[in-house]
């Protein structure tokens, strides 16, 4: 069982030692990694009540800054070998021959797996096709001679060292029979598109006659927006370390879906789910890119064939070849308004690239479902199929690029009307969900706009484009709105153990790839039980633990919160049954007591109190264990539930070179209650930084003749660096959502939305140029 705390370090050190034996190096004198990392909770001896909301530091912080937190490629097995992959060099066709002879003769060679000798395996199942399915495609994995995309793995080479594996893999050569492939977006569209499908329904919505309303509108904009392929580029490449123990498979994965991955590996490999154990205690970033992939399967299969434990770390280029990203989109966004600024028509249609069986629609149009009261609405999404790696979900899929189009168009309408863009948005606030008619659970975007505008100094903005200049630099301000739909997974479950020492353990198969989940769930548990942080231990990110809680849709905290609350209620009911007759609480019901100061107290008479320790000790119990589920998210069926962002940006654009610098950025959020002010601010800033990349620098380039990705590296795919990131201000309304557990809605993806538009709108305000193609490169401004 892996934990967030440091208590398993001894075990890890032992495994590391096994990895070192035989390397011919004196290791005993090396610095020990076991320098004690105190649980940071021990420093924060705040009482349990009131912990929710506190800006507590991350509980795993000391381990991470010491470099002592073990990631997937840092687990070691005795006898472990290293994997390297060979990739196809054509987009579509058949492998005629594959020559592995030179690789097999290379020093250190252990094993090679190709479609010729791979064990029979079932294909992966895509997300949502089953409760625990988590794939991006349903393609056979090394089961036939078919090549389906350029960069598909065609061989897995195992060798004693990584260097030997890399060299051997470089010696593999294949001949192909190429077939005509669809290798460009233009070609894919010309082939004919199909209407996208979401939840079994075609993505096509019409309310009223939006085209006619647009034509009749006093003011309108009708434009096409383009957004490119993008890759997640977590700094930790996908990695997996696996070992078979008989028919049992042990997997140390970099994953945001451990339970899904255990189930998926079992169904693919033809073994039972309980025979696969997946842990992922630390993940070096995920962003939607680290669910079930082909690499875990290739590692497990080649380990089985070779009889050796295997470490498979994708090279950086390998990440691009195997793991898809954000799909390319072309969007039509048409918005019509009356002279009074009231929207009368919204048309958001377009085409996204897609691959067969991909569960990820890249539904840019989703943002237009509920953002504004527009009277008429037309939505349509077409899929264009390219012969490329399956597209995946990348932080705020659909909405990140859709909000760029919608919020740019709103800005255009504001300019056309001569109206302040914030006032225009507020004027079009819907009273209920425009699409479903459901009441909003809690929508305070207007308050977020007002607070953000005041703090940012929006009143200093000159609405006339290209009017503010300092030397060679043109300066502009812009804003954009973002929203993200609330989600809570129905599979949430947790096990709560209370001990006679007055401590608690919460077991839940949730994930922390940097979001702060571990800290936040510890905080919630301590808060719910009125314990100190250092009295609560969290065990997570392990498929043997309860709960189906994938890191998806910004839902982990809401899912886990509901579960922890349910577990607390169950524990309180059980504790009351254990009371002795002379307990101060004797005779009280669950409705009459509240956790307080390490035990239970009568709600309206806190002097009547007995500690957990006392209750359990006097009942002669070592511990009390309860397991609970969070139940179905019925709140989402009764209410329209979203988190909201109002994003403000100032840019400086060089009038001579077209260089764009984001000089100021502010996010004003309305996301319900914030559980941890520090980690939440990190999430908000993180999304805004990634959106700087979306707006200005990021693009996965592919060769339109061969569909091969051309910039599969961090040197040629430009994520924002320190020099690109200004001080980012974040504030929030903090208004709890009455329908959400703890009053908290999701925050992980929210600030990806609206930020790119805020930047683009600021560029327009600075330069007078409206750029509708991302990234906004300097050539588009010259």
């Amino acid at each position, binding site marked *: 069982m892996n934990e967030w705390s440091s208590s398993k370090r001894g075990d890890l050190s032992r495994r590391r030692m096994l990895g070192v034996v035989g390397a011919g190096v004196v290791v005993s004198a*090396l610095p020990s990694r076991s320098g004690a990392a105190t649980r940071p909770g021990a420093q924060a001896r705040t009482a349990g009540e009131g912990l929710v909301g506190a800006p507590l530091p991350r509980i795993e912080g*000391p381990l991470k800054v*010491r470099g002592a937190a*073990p990631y997937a490629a840092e687990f070691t097995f005795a006898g472990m070998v290293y994997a390297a992959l060979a990739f196809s060099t054509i987009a579509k066709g058949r492998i005629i021959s594959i020559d592995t002879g030179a690789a097999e003769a290379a020093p250190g060679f252990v094993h090679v797996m190709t479609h010729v000798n791979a064990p029979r395996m079932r294909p992966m199942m895509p997300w949502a096709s089953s409760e625990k399915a988590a794939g991006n495609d349903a393609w056979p994995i090394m089961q036939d001679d078919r090549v389906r995309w350029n960069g598909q793995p065609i061989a897995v080479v195992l060798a004693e060292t990584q260097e030997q594996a890399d060299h051997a893999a470089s010696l593999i050569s294949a001949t192909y029979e190429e077939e005509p492939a669809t290798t460009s977006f233009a070609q894919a569209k010309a082939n004919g598109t199909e209407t996208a499908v979401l939840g079994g329904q075609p993505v096509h919505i019409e309310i009223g006659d939006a085209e006619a309303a647009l034509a009749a509108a006093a003011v309108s904009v009708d434009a096409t927006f383009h957004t490119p392929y993008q890759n997640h580029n977590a700094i930790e490449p996908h990695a997996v370390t696996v070992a078979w123990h008989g028919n049992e498979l042990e997997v140390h994965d970099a994953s945001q879906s451990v339970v899904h991955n255990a189930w998926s590996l079992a169904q693919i490999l033809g073994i039972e789910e309980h025979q696969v154990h997946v842990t992922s205690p630390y993940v070096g970033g995920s962003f939607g890119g680290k669910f079930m992939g082909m690499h875990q399967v290739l590692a497990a299969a080649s380990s089985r064939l070779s009889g050796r434990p295997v470490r498979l770390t994708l090279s950086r280029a390998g990440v691009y070849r195997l793991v898809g990203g954000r799909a390319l989109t072309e969007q039509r966004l048409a918005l019509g308004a009356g002279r009074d600024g009231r929207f009368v028509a919204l048309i958001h249609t377009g085409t996204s690239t897609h691959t067969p069986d991909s569960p990820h629609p890249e539904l840019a149009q989703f943002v237009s479902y509920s953002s504004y009261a527009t009277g008429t609405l037309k939505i349509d999404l077409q899929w264009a199929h390219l012969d490329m790696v399956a597209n995946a979900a990348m932080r705020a899929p659909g909405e990140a690029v859709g909000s760029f189009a919608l919020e740019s168009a709103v800005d255009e309408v504001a300019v056309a009307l001569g109206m302040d863009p914030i006032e225009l948005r507020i004027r079009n606030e819907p009273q209920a969900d425009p699409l479903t008619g459901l009441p909003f659970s809690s929508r305070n975007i207007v308050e977020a706009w007002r607070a953000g505008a005041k703090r940012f100094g929006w009143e200093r903005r000159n609405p006339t484009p290209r009017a503010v200049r300092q030397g060679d630099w043109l300066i502009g301000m812009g804003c954009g709105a973002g929203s993200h739909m609330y989600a809570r997974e129905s599979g949430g479950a947790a096990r709560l153990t209370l001990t006679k020492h007055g401590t608690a353990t919460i077991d839940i198969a949730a994930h922390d790839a940097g979001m702060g989940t571990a800290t936040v769930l510890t905080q919630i548990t301590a808060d719910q039980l009125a314990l100190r942080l250092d009295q609560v231990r969290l065990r997570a990110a392990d498929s043997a633990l309860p709960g189906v809680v994938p890191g998806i849709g910004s839902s982990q905290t809401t899912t886990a919160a509901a579960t922890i609350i349910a577990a607390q209620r169950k524990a309180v009911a059980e504790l009351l049954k254990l009371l002795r007759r002379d307990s101060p609480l004797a005779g009280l019901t669950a409705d009459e007591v509240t956790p307080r100061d390490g035990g239970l107290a009568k709600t309206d008479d806190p002097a009547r109190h007995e500690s957990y320790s006392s209750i359990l000790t006097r009942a002669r119990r070592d511990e009390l264990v309860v397991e609970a589920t969070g139940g179905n998210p019925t709140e989402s069926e009764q209410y329209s539930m979203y988190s909201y962002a109002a994003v403000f940006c100032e840019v400086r654009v060089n009038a001579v070179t077209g260089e764009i610098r984001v000089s100021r950025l502010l996010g004003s959020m309305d996301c319900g209650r914030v559980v941890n002010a*520090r980690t939440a601010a990190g999430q908000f800033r993180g999304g805004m930084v990634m959106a700087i990349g979306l707006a200005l620098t990021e693009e996965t380039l592919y060769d339109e003749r061969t569909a091969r990705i051309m910039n599969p590296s961090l040197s040629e795919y430009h994520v924002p660096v320190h020099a690109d990131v200004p001080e*980012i201000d974040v504030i929030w309304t903090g208004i709890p959502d009455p329908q959400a557990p703890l009053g908290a809605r999701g925050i992980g993806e929210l600030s990806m939305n609206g930020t790119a538009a805020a930047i683009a709108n600021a560029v327009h305000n600075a330069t007078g140029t409206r750029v509708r193609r991302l990234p906004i490169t300097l050539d588009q401004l010259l």
Partner: protein
Amino acid sequence: MSAESSVIRVNGTAVAPPGDPRVSLLDFLRETLGLHGTKKGCDQGGCGACTLLVDGERILSCLALAVQYTGRDVVTVEALADGDRLHPVQQAFIDHDGFQCGYCTPGQICSAIGMAGELERGVPSHVTEDLSAKRAELTAEELRERMSGNLCRCGAHNGIVAAIAKAHQAGQLSDSGRAAR
């Protein structure tokens, strides 16, 4: 060849170089010595996750062949703390939330320490105005420029910059760790 020049000093301990000359210093630390604190993000010098200190200077260990580092002093993130006491920069990263996933963190921390030496030696950066200055000042712009070789994908940049600035102001940035003390 003297005994001293035939071994690599890793965090103060002499170790024999690998037999395979292809082994990078990064892989040598991680796979042979079991020192996983230094991270592999790209293996091609593009991300900075593998930054560590050699004779006090920051280098990208994925672009360094281990066999070329005999006779040199290699300091990794594992040697920065003094037992239970974190290095001031490590503590500053916690205090200012200078990380999320933690994967770029050891590289950021080592890079910041190496940067301090460059400032003291007057090594200019792309944004340095006065190229003749004996000692470079660490303005916010200088800090961002000089740390731009260390990528962070979680977006913890503000916290990283704040942590480094704080440690620098306290005069604790140039402390190159236990091995040097």
